[in-house]
């Protein structure tokens, strides 16, 4: 078990290394990406460009620049090209907002996803099942940014029911905190609710065939007990797996939602930095995001291995 975990950790590190190199390459080797000119701004002149090249070391060989930047990121000294602010600090500042957004949305999608999935499975084939399926599939099919735009327009401008964005810290005013985050939460959760309810439904229907269910019924347990105690619990395994993967990868979805709803989290920072071709924050944020994905992936794998010895001893199939 321990060896497996150690191997996974080494694998994680290798993957993160590869990700960082990939980002570096994308933004350096691609044509028209002269960072000195980018920094010098619109009205650059030769002296300024030369000065900047000198200051940041853009004329050094690429591998050297890469090492310098990585060193800076891990020592907490990395500084943005564009604004010269400390990138790591800004990322840390953005954590409460991004996490509020992610965790809130996750709670919502888990709750509704499991609820809808459960109801669909229990009433399989009936009208409730169909209705919930329609909701679920529609949820999966909605373009998130479009939904955000529509909700903003009708719920915020036209009807003035909810604020159009911004962030109120939880410590300051929990009610406002929630009120400001409801639209972003819903926007982010909609797709996952749909997806999870269908996965759970499918998984529960699979489980309902299993022997232990028949046994439980034979023992005289109520249908409800059978469903919740046995079927649901065992059907949650794929949900847990999926959740691990999805939550880890949430940074991507958060980029758009934060932008539209004016939330100054890491996603917003990522988006600004991308547009400015500001490599240091892009690197740092990508590594941050990749770290989470890899971490959650590994946790899920380790959990799998723990549960299923065949997987641990053979080659992992995931």
């Amino acid at each position: 078990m321990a060896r497996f975990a150690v191997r996974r950790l080494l694998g994680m590190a290798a993957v993160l290394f590869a990700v960082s190199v990939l980002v570096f390459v994308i933004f350096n080797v691609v044509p028209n990406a002269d960072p000195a000119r980018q920094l010098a701004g619109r009205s650059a002149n030769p002296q300024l460009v030369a000065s900047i090249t000198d200051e940041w070391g853009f004329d050094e060989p690429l591998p050297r620049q890469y090492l310098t930047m990585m060193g800076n990121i891990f020592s907490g000294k990395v500084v943005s090209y564009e604004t010269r602010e400390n990138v790591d600090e800004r990322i840390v500042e953005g954590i409460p907002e991004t996490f509020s957004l992610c965790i809130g949305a996750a709670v919502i999608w888990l709750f509704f996803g499991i609820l809808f999935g459960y109801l669909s499975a229990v009433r399989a084939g009936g009208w409730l099942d169909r209705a919930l399926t329609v909701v679920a599939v529609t949820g999966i099919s909605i373009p998130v940014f479009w939904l955000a735009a529509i909700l903003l327009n009708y719920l915020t401008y036209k009807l003035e029911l909810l604020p159009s964005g911004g962030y109120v810290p939880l410590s300051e005013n929990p009610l406002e905190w929630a009120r400001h985050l409801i639209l972003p939460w819903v926007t982010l959760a909609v797709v996952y609710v749909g997806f999870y309810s269908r996965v759970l439904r499918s998984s529960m229907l699979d489980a309902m065939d299993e022997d232990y269910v028949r046994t439980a019924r034979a023992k005289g347990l109520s249908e409800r007990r059978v469903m919740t105690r046995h079927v649901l619990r065992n059907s949650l395994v794929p949900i847990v797996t999926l959740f691990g993967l999805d939550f880890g990868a949430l940074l991507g979805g958060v980029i758009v939602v934060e932008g539209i709803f004016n939330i100054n989290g890491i996603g917003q920072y990522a988006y600004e930095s991308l547009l400015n071709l500001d490599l240091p924050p892009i690197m740092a944020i990508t590594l941050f995001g990749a770290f989470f994905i890899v971490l959650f992936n590994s946790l899920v794998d380790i959990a799998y291995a723990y549960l299923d010895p065949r997987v641990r001893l053979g080659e992992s199939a995931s």
Partner: protein
Amino acid sequence: MAGRSPWYLAYRRLRRNRVALGFGVLFALIVAFVLAAPLWANGVADTGPNATHTLERVEVDGESREVVNREGKPVGPLWFGAGGKFFLGADGRLGRDEMVRLMYGGRTSLFVGVVASLITVLLATVLGLLAGYRRGWVDTLISRALDVVWAFPVTLLAIALGLALATGGLQIGPLHLSGDSIWVPILIIGVVYTPYVARPVRGEVLALREREFVEAAVAQGAGSIRVMVRELLPNLASTLIVFFAISVANSMLLESLLSFLGVGVQPPNTSWGTMIAGGFELITSSPQLTVVPGVLLLLTVLAVNVFADGLRDALDPRAKLRLEAHAGAPEPEGHAV
């Protein structure tokens, strides 16, 4: 039903699934709608998707109206008031015909979605087969590479690639793609989604390779490639078909997101994503410019998703039988899932 091929059985099951068929027809209608773009553009609206009409006027029921008024507000839907011109109104301050753009934009969105998915499935099949069947260092190499792409937050990677390539284009050896080529977003989306399909494919290959028919083929002296193509591939077919359909839905959504952010489809090409972005500017005064392309995109993706479900059910009968058993009386009518 002795003697019937599994494909025929699948086809029969699909036929019984009314809902999936219904959405399949919806999808076909949408495809027909966008394919009719040149007909509408030349025959009815008399304009192309990029032709601007900022200073022109249009005759509506006898009165002459500005296509774009002095404050930049575009004319709203005219329906057939001007003979079909500006059926859905003008698209903004450039005065382009929204209906024409909707149709041409749909072509682009569908094209990007379908072709990107083909690339995804193709790459995923090749990589999954190689990794799953050959194992060893090939597997390790491919799996690690997939891990790296997987580790990259999808949207971040797609935006980063889109940005980088939009400016300078892409050079692969002798092949040069300019930054605004439609192939840039297609390739990006195709590659970015590959790990999500390649991994399950690899998993299935791992399972299949232990089966008897594979052993038999190997015993008969079949080489790796033969085994992969002749034995494994046909058994993957149903999975691949379903993945393809789901990929189309996801690819269309990703394309619209990238285009909305300005790093997907580039002008002069239009897609529903770029139209939503353009409409967003004018959302308070002309909401139809945002709502209509979005609804169309939603319907298309929905249709694809539902049909994909139907395909999955048709190709995997266990799910269907189980459903019928639990619902009580067997229902030959279609189920949504």
